[in-house]
């Protein structure tokens, strides 16, 4: 069974540009999450989808971040325009309907220069 996959693995963009990160969850997992880890700090929750609906987006930093999960399958996280402080590793995770155990992807390392 394929795990959670994220694309790209690395992205380097200039301040002011737009970047879109993609996450493919484990098949059949209704819950999809986005997290971010800024260098050396804790992994911080960004938002939670249940199927195609946003269940909780309390962790989204500001309106430069837009997450979508059309059709309840894969998800995208767009940052527009990117700022220097957006640099970090963005993780996607998915879980079954009721379970708290989430399975993580390998992350996308975003560097804004």
């Amino acid at each position, binding site marked *: 069974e394929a795990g*959670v996959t994220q694309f790209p693995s690395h992205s380097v963009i200039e301040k002011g540009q737009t970047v879109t990160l993609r996450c493919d969850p484990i098949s059949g997992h209704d*819950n999809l*999450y986005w*997290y971010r880890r800024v260098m*050396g*700090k*804790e*992994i*911080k*929750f960004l*938002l*939670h989808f*249940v199927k195609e609906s946003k269940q*909780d987006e309390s*962790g989204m930093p500001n309106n430069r971040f837009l997450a979508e999960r059309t059709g309840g399958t894969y998800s995208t996280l767009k940052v527009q325009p990117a700022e220097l402080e957006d640099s970090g590793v963005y*993780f996607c*995770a998915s*879980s*079954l*309907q*009721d*379970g*708290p*155990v*989430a*399975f*993580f*992807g*390998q*992350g996308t390392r975003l560097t804004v220069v």
Partner: protein
Amino acid sequence: DQQVKQNSPSLSVQEGRISILNCDYTNSMFDYFLWYKKYPAEGPTFLISISSIKDKNEDGRFTVFLNKSAKHLSLHIVPSQPGDSAVYFCAAPKSGGGADGLTFGKGTHLIIQP
């Protein structure tokens, strides 16, 4: 306001000995806890969990202990092996159990010395 705290950024243990990683929490609503292990350039991997109705959960070399009155949990690894060298994160679902997003600690970097 950190609700999950791992106060030891790093821990060095000799191979074969016991590794004990600690985690404290402040939110009384938390009733389920997870430990994740993370290697460099990889995502966190689920290791073991415990529900608040238990005080111990064991899986092979890994045991998690929960002390609800002290709001403290610990992960014991016995015996420690070189492959255990990684960063360990303690986490809890934001609003208690269920499928809520997780609140993580900052992690403890465990180094197993040969």
